């Protein structure tokens, strides 16, 4: 329907005009692709080049002798293996906590009529906590963690990331619950199920795709997070991969290969995650405001 109207619209214009538009369209497409991908590709090549070729002029974009020495150097000889492990533990643990706590709250907000218009008020309040700029809470959280003797521990990051992801989980899951018809739960209740039973056996299986997409977003956010990790962890035992990479950038300016190798590894889970939630991407990045 849409394309037919558009075709009619185009045929009303001059044919030459539409041809020029089509050409322009593909030129823009290719330019945008090159612009997006070339820098990332360049970093991958640096991580695979010997140091001689890293500094070669003109820069070898395609032809070089690949080597894995920088990957070995970063993850075996240096501490990046530990950072990787810390990143994985913190990411998975905080996502699990945020999902459990947030899904329960989202269900209550989506399905129960609370007094004093609390559904709307609480939802908006929860959303507003996500709007704080990170640096605003980073300063007091650092002091709180210092008082609790939790600085330089993985626990501190798990706690902070859980709080950070929680509003997001509540908003996303509230939307997914609201999209479901209520009859299903009523039927389960009539069949003698408890409300908790109805949630676990009837509702959750139906929102699994939404739950999975929400989980993936939390994983991405926690995996990528930098400021809190920088502030709360400075020792090798608790440092995440982004903080480890950042430390190399500012301290050993010369080790481009190690840095690129670590950064390339940091990208891998993100690529897998992002491609798996393509469909929900716009909805997730806009906190559910756009259902694209």
């Amino acid at each position: 329907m849409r394309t037919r109207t558009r075709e009619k619209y185009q045929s009303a214009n001059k044919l030459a005009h539409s041809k020029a538009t089509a050409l322009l369209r593909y030129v823009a497409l290719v330019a945008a692709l090159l612009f997006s991908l070339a820098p990332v590709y360049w970093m991958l090549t640096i991580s695979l080049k010997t140091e001689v070729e890293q500094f070669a002029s003109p820069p070898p974009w395609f032809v070089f002798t690949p080597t894995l020495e920088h990957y070995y150097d970063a993850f075996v000889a240096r501490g990046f293996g530990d950072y990787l492990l810390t990143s994985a533990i913190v990411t998975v643990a905080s996502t699990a906590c945020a999902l459990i706590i947030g899904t329960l709250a989202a269900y209550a907000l989506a399905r129960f009529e609370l007094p004093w218009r609390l559904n709307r008020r609480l939802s908006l309040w929860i959303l507003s906590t996500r709007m704080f700029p990170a640096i605003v809470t980073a300063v007091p959280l650092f002091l709180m963690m210092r008082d609790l003797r939790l600085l330089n521990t993985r626990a501190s990051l798990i706690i902070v990331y859980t709080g950070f992801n929680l509003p997001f989980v509540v908003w996303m899951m509230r939307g997914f619950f609201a999209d479901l018809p209520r009859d299903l739960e009523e039927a389960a209740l009539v069949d003698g199920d408890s409300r908790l039973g109805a949630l676990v056996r009837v509702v959750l299986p139906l929102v699994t795709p939404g739950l999975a997409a929400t989980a993936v977003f939390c994983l991405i956010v926690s995996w990528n997070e930098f400021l809190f990790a920088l502030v709360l962890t400075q020792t090798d035992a608790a440092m995440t991969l982004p903080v480890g990479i950042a430390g190399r950038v500012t301290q050993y300016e010369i080790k481009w290969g190690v840095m690129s190798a670590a950064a390339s590894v940091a990208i891998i889970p993100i690529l897998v995650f992002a491609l798996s939630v393509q469909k929900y991407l716009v909805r997730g990045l806009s906190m559910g405001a756009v259902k694209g």
Partner: protein
Amino acid sequence: MQKSRRFFSALNKRELLLPALFLAPALAVLLALSIYPLIYSITISLQQETVAGITWGLGNFARLFSDNFFLTALGHTFIYAISALVCEFLLGLGLALLLNNQIRGRGVFRASLLIPMMLPSVVVGVVWRLMLNPNFGSINGTLKQIGINTESLTWTASPKLAMLSVIAVDVWQWTPFVFLVLLAGLQAIPQEPYEAALIDGSSRWQTFWHVTLPLLKPSILIVLLLRTMDLLRVFDQIFILTEGGPGFATETISLYIYRTAFRFFDFGYAAAMSFVLLALTNVISAIYIRLIQAEPN
């Protein structure tokens, strides 16, 4: 319908117990990790360390007005946010309009555009340090190859080009997001207004101005709101790319707060500055939300 209302309403106290139990953990976590830190931050912003011990007062806030570094950082934040927002919006809108058609290979295109915006910001910093390095970065290397003198093009190391460089990196990373949101908005526009415009014989430009743009306005406002909030708090990429330098050339307000708190350990003053940032983002988001709510539906 009657039954459904009874099922979900909380008419008596027993009925309230379950939702209260469901909500309690989330509210507890948010109180501990958002509200309590905010109160903590207020108290330390009102304290100043002097030789005589800790004194209470508005000293930290008074300092803001005479601190040129703070005012400069505030200015940088606005320059950064406004320039990046305008570029990302215009490029994203242009791309969305151009590609709002059936195009071969659209799935691949979409997937490739996702890559920059999903990258850890630290990796974005690394990627662009490699690209922009004046001596062996691929940008200057490629420019040299086609015969351009790159001696003055030191990018992030140059006081003049550093701000431009960090803005360009943000545009690189986030234009795809603006594009995807606006594309989703464009595809949600029904065909009837276009058919009406066609019958009225309006030109492409008129159709864009009087049909597309008004109908796209809610999406535009939402994406501008989200980008503005992120841009005003920018920290990660600039920290990796320039650490606010050279000198003070790219120091934004988040970086200056970080430096004050974690390099100079002046937590009270850092907290006071962070409230200015918080107030700023609140006022701007309130304006956007007012505009969004003024839209029909």
